[in-house]
């Protein structure tokens, strides 16, 4: 597992049999979204497995971060990969729901939330 924790955003990439899982902790906004984009781009550089995001420790997410997710998901799709949104916090669930991105996007898959 590799990690980088600039500022207050925690990003840890775990290599699993099912593909890379990026564990994100902290606040995702206009300031930190570029770090998330870079991590997604790096994780999707090689291989064919899905890239999964663990957002269960995300305490804030705004439209800037959602745009980063959509763009990264589209880039992965162009490479024949899939971006999956895995475990997520209540805050993330609320924002995905209010933008309908939990239901209607081709950019990523929202996995059933174990709660």
């Amino acid at each position: 597992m590799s990690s980088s924790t600039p500022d207050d955003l925690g990003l840890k990439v775990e290599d699993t049999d099912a593909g890379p899982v990026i564990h994100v902790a902290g606040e995702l906004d206009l300031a930190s979204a570029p770090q998330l984009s870079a991590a997604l781009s790096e994780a999707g550089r090689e291989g064919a497995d899905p890239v999964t995001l663990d957002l269960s420790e995300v305490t804030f997410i705004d439209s800037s971060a959602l745009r980063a997710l959509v763009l990264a998901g589209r880039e992965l799709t162009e490479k024949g990969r899939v971006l999956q949104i895995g475990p997520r916090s209540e805050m993330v669930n609320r924002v995905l729901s209010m933008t309908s991105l939990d239901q209607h996007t081709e950019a990523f898959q929202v996995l059933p939330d174990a709660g």
Partner: protein
Amino acid sequence: MTDSTTQTQTATSFDLVLPPDPELLRVVRLVASAVASLTSLPIDGVEGLRVGADELVSTLIQASAGGPITVTFNRHTDRIVILGRVQVDPSEGFALDPLTDQILDTVVTSHDWETRGDEVHGRVEQSLPAD
């Protein structure tokens, strides 16, 4: 665009003037939460105002021509209003991002945007529950 409704008294009003630095968004969120905590807003309303303030100032940061952003917090007896304005490059135009629009529609009571000369003005409002 101003907070022009005058029939209710403004109990608190102050400005933050910030460079268009995304790192300062957390300051804006913190101040929004602090102002909301002085009122009878329930937790969801406080969270909504925090998100609304973030979306307001994020939008202005991205529209900015490089100059400072002025954010005015107004706490009335029946609502909280946050006004923001920034100088923009008139040749670039301004359009609110659809995701931002969707989020603001959900988290705050109202929001509106206006281009006035070479400035973009935004406004978010959260109504307070009646006593």
